[in-house]
């Protein structure tokens, strides 16, 4: 696709946005009925696709500029090639983000004209001025960044990286701005003793944007987008590895998958924390969110989320395990015995401590921090060590135990109202379904992964990586990680919307349509899968379009001999 064609798509999307804003001013609009899907699902599909493309074009620039900077600093051309290849895909998908964004406004207006008019008027300045300006600015900087890649080399590289940083800043601000209206729908302004309508009438735009769940959502999405960028890079690398014809290409794409996965794992480790913060703030805003999510209509959505995250942690560690197998000298790597001991006792100690000192009581840290840091601080003073293989296997065991704790519900019923004795856990064992147990499971997953990756890193430093010799199964693991992370994003996106119950904007604008009920998890899973498949099909096509021609033209020889020592 040529630049003018991409620009045309972006211009059309902006035109759609402006038309939407103008159309929203028309009084007495009536809703259109979307056939087959219904109005709510139609909005859901377009909104989720827009969110996924948005996450790609906001998340990958962070990944790209870090990679470019690493290449510049280490004078390793592989990083530069990686950054440029991902940028090529991002440029194509930028147009898709714009296209789905424009479509989203139209579908929303057509499906819910009254609400959309009200909503756009609440954030008129954002939709009519700030967001379009940021989007145009982002588009210009992205194209400038891409087209100056070859021209700004050598001494000018610093300038190019600075342009990348500017792109990231613009993307970040764009996300922060649009998160304002998004989070407002869940947690609009409220104050004791004042009616919401009065409060809203007196509120400034900033008051509406900086609502209670805005910053937690920003943090969750920044972190999520970095992980997303990493997983997508891993997926691109897996595609290219599968199609590679030479050992040199295989070595490069093996390395690319390794880097993508490493960054994704780093960011994913923080995902449960930022997710918990978001949930905490939402429950603090209105406590009825909490039982609705954890014990009522959405409880099985969270059960599914637990299964997905558990699977992702298993896959991340399995990739490290497969990587370790192709490192010569990995068998010599050992670790203090404290690491597996802490891994085994952590979930149980944590449940006990959190039962006494529940969050946000800082006293729990007095017990938990020394325990978690013990292997890293005191390990060197204890002579007893164990092999990497044993530590990682114990790690896998604890990941399965943690998954079991996380996934054991209080009862097998979709709502608390349907719980009967045959489906409910014995009350003596309620602790297994308590929040301290779930949080201890999450932390154990994180801890086991950190220990495994510390070992992996030691093996890389002490041994020699045979790039391009990784078990072929690992490429499927990278694809599984990308697919599962996007599926989970779709699931949690649905939860964030459904938690508003029968409101467009919680407690403020009710949804009077017949579709304002909670759909079944099965119905949701069909649509989430469909959306994920469409997204994957478009991204796969973009990868083929962006990266295949470069192969025929031939690229600059890279400095990656095979086998290469990873430093």
């Amino acid at each position, binding site marked *: 696709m040529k630049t003018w064609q991409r620009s045309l798509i972006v211009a059309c999307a902006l035109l759609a946005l402006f038309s939407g804003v103008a159309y929203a001013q028309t009084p007495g609009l009536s809703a259109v009925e979307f056939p087959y899907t219904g109005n709510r699902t139609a909005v859901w599909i377009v909104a989720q696709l827009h969110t996924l493309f948005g996450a790609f074009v906001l998340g990958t620039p962070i990944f790209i500029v870090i990679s470019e900077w690493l290449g510049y600093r280490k004078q390793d051309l592989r990083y530069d090639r990686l950054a440029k290849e991902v940028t090529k895909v991002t440029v194509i998908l930028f147009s898709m983000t714009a296209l789905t964004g424009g479509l989203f406004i139209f579908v929303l207006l057509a499906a819910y004209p009254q609400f959309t008019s009200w909503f756009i008027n609440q954030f008129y300045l954002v939709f009519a001025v700030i967001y379009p300006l940021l989007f145009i600015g982002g588009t210009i900087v992205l194209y400038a960044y891409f087209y100056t890649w070859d021209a700004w080399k050598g001494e000018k590289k610093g300038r190019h990286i600075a342009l990348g940083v500017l792109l990231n800043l613009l993307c970040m601000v764009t996300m922060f701005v649009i998160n304002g209206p998004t989070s407002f729908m869940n947690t609009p302004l409220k104050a004791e003793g004042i009616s919401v309508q009065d409060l809203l009438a007196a509120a400034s735009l900033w008051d509406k944007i900086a609502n209670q769940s805005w910053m937690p959502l920003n943090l969750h999405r920044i972190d999520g987008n970095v992980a997303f960028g990493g997983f997508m890079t891993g997926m691109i690398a897996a595609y290219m590895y599968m199609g590679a014809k030479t050992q040199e290409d295989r070595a490069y794409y093996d390395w690319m998958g390794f880097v993508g996965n490493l960054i994704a794992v780093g960011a994913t480790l923080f995902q449960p924390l930022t997710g918990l913060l978001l949930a905490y703030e939402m429950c603090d805003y209105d406590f009825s969110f909490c039982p609705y999510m954890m014990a009522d209509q959405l409880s099985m959505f969270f059960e599914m989320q637990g299964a997905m995250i558990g699977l992702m942690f298993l896959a991340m560690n*399995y990739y490290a395990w497969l990587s370790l197998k192709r490192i010569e000298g990995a068998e010599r790597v050992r670790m203090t015995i404290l690491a597996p001991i802490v891994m085994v006792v952590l979930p149980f100690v944590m449940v006990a401590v959190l039962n006494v000192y529940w969050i946000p009581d800082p006293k729990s840290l007095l017990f938990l921090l020394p325990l978690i840091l013990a292997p890293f601080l005191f390990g060197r003073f204890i002579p007893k060590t164990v092999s990497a293989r044993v530590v990682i296997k114990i790690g896998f065991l604890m990941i399965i135990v943690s998954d079991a704790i996380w996934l054991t519900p209080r009862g*097998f019923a979709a709502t608390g109202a349907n719980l009967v004795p045959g*489906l409910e856990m014995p009350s003596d064992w309620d602790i297994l379904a308590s929040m301290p147990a779930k949080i201890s499971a999450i932390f154990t997953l994180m801890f086991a992964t950190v220990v495994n990756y510390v070992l992996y890193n030691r093996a890389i430093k002490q041994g020699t990586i045979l790039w391009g010799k990784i078990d072929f199964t690992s490429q499927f693991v990278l*694809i599984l990680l990308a697919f599962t992370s996007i599926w989970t994003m779709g699931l949690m996106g649905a939860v964030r919307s459904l938690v508003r119950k029968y409101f467009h904007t919680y407690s403020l604008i009710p949804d009077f349509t017949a579709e304002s009920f*909670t759909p079944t998890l*099965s119905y949701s899973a069909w649509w989430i*899968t469909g959306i994920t498949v469409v997204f994957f099909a478009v991204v796969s096509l973009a990868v083929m379009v962006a990266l295949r021609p470069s192969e025929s033209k031939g690229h600059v020889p890279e400095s990656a001999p095979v086998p290469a020592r990873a430093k």
Partner: protein
Amino acid sequence: MGNVMKKLAIGLVVGGILVGVAKALEFPFVFQMLFLGFAMLGAAVFMLLDAPPLRTMSGGKSLCALVAFYLLLCTVYIAGASFLPQFDPEDEKGKIAKILKSQIDASEKGKTEELIARAKALDEQVKALEVRLKTLGVDQAVPAQQAGIPPAPTTSVATGDFMKLGEEQWQLMECYNCHKLRGEGGKKRGPELDNIGSFLTVDEIKQKITDPKSFMAEGFEKEWEKGRMPDKFKDLMEPKDIQALASWLGTFKNTSVNTPRPIKKK
């Protein structure tokens, strides 16, 4: 093959032990199967860890394997989600319609629908009058009642129905998610209410519902400080619904239940 058989045997033994222990501890069958499932998952993971490496595939084979893998993922995720207990939306649809009824009536949509209905009724009555005038002669006066304005609806709720309405509000507002009553619902998020009628009058209960900070239950100081009880019911509920809920709760005077004493704060 030896690797698979060994891990499978270990998985079955561990699973068997877990099922046995769960049975002894009176976990329902579905939980016993869940624990067995985790043991088998563990066996599968350890089989994978020690499995021989997969050989690099050619481009065409990779593509086929990739498509098959995506199909497998889609099937597993949809099947997994469908296998879990499903919430029946029909349970909620009626609830939502009841909760939003007053707001729908008060909304522009409701007003428009009402106006259209009135206009239709007027049109029909005018037509009927025209027919009647033709048969009776034009000099007859038209009574005001026949001019088209329908009589205002009268709503009178008998005491029994009123209590029923209160109980219905308890269900609609999902109070049971936080409060235990008649041994059902509540997970210690809020106080048990079986004896609330002995401590508070109907007006005081009403005050607590509309202004959650007005009373604090003993032992729920943290929850009260954090404002755990949502301050939204005054906006969500009609005054008569609040009255009905408060009146119904006021009838609960079961002294054998340890309902915490409410302390007046406002």
